[in-house]
């Protein structure tokens, strides 16, 4: 099995060893996201299980030219966990859940901090205006609604939306440009 492939690519090719490595590498990250997005601990545990099943299913859809593996894992996890929250007839992960106050676990942090892509995105965000950075942080990291962001920052709702659109567009463009994806070798 070629080792210049990412774990997800290897899983898509049927590499069973990569499945175990993927669990070891990303379970901490996914657990952190589950604790941020789902209130109940046992629900979060089942949410993590759901996410990995979804990862096995979506492995073939992963395109390393579009994003790093960690970003792909976070995207699949975020989508699946929000779906789960909705199915449980709760609000999606908006403002009240901030009070749960879960951060990213050390394992989760390690899974993404070494990514060249993450470093690039951090630099990009740092190049944005403080106001735009704040809006992006409140929306993507803390999950606040547009309205809540507008109230908190005292910015017009339209400005909040345009900051988000522009910021995410910049990130989308940068994702396509990051050449080093920090492939995982095992």
């Amino acid at each position, binding site marked *: 099995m070629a080792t210049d492939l990412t774990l997800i690519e290897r899983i898509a*090719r*049927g590499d*069973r060893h990569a*499945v175990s490595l993927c*669990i*070891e590498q990303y*379970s901490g990250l996914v*657990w952190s996201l589950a*604790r941020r997005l789902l*209130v*109940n*601990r*046992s*629900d979060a*545990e*089942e949410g993590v*299980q759901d996410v990995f099943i979804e990862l*096995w*299913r979506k492995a073939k859809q992963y395109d390393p030219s*579009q*994003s790093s593996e960690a*970003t*792909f894992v*976070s*995207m699949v996890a975020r*989508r699946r966990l929000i779906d789960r929250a909705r199915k*449980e007839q*709760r609000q999606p992960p908006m*403002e009240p859940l*901030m*009070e*749960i*106050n879960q*951060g990213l*676990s*050390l*394992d*989760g*942090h390690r899974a*993404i901090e070494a*990514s060249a892509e*993450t470093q690039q*995105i*951090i630099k990009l*965000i740092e190049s944005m205006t403080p106001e735009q950075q704040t809006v*992006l*942080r409140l929306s*993507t*990291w803390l999950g606040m609604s547009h309205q809540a962001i507008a*109230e*908190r920052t005292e910015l017009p709702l339209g400005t909040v*939306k*345009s900051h988000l*659109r522009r*910021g*995410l*567009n910049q990130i*989308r463009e940068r*994702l*396509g440009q990051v050449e080093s994806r920090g492939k995982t070798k095992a």
Partner: protein
Amino acid sequence: MNNTTMNDDLIDLMTERALGQLSAEDEQRLIDELKAQGLLDTTEQTQAEIELAIAAAMNAMACHGGQIDQTPMPEGLEQKLHADAEQFFGSSKQAATTAPAKPSNVEEFDRARNQPKEPFAARYRSPFLGWAVAATLAFVIVLTQLPETGPVALNPSESRLALIDQTNTEIVTWAPSEIPAFNRVSGDVVWNNTLQQGYLRLVGMPANDPTISQYQLWIVDPERDANPIDGGVFDVLNGNREVIIPIDAKLDVLDPEAFAITREQPGGVVVSNGPLLMVATS
């Protein structure tokens, strides 16, 4: 990127959808607009790109001023993931060359996962012994209204009320603070020593900026240690309203005498130099 023909309004709507903010009315408006402009074919790809951007931003934020959660993954969860993978991909002896990214046994796997869940007691791993386990399970079952359809999570406010209904739960109120910015803060601490669970309720607590400082709870428990127990860090991001914060005690609490809040650097500290912003004494 293939959305160059999409106008800002459409991108706004798709961004809102990706962030879970889109109302049903706007969802319909989005679909109608996409249809009218002949862009439905590119929607899925664009949506995926936006979601990737959100995930990338989220990861970047986590590494750049995000809070580090010291709570480890539950014991046994990783084993469950390996067991799920084993079930999903079939026998470990299966050939590894022909790509079962979506294996033939997916339907069987889904059926198996959708079976009624095993008794909660069999799944729950508690650090407590004997009666404490029974008490904990009784509480969790009340909380989650199990058993056949899976847990129904409660929000912190509901969980706090459920905890108040349990035996051995104590409620202590915050004393008026001597610090001007906090002297109008009110609320209480709900703590159940048997279950080792509790909640802070704070009304009118000033908001903090998590990138600069965070609040940290301390549990004064001389039976346990001369130093207070770290009860976890938390943020109040919208001041002048009620917030409910789950207590995250890093050690087992034996006999709490008081609860106190300090403001510390992001992520909290091991030993605080104060000052005590709020105090509630048992």
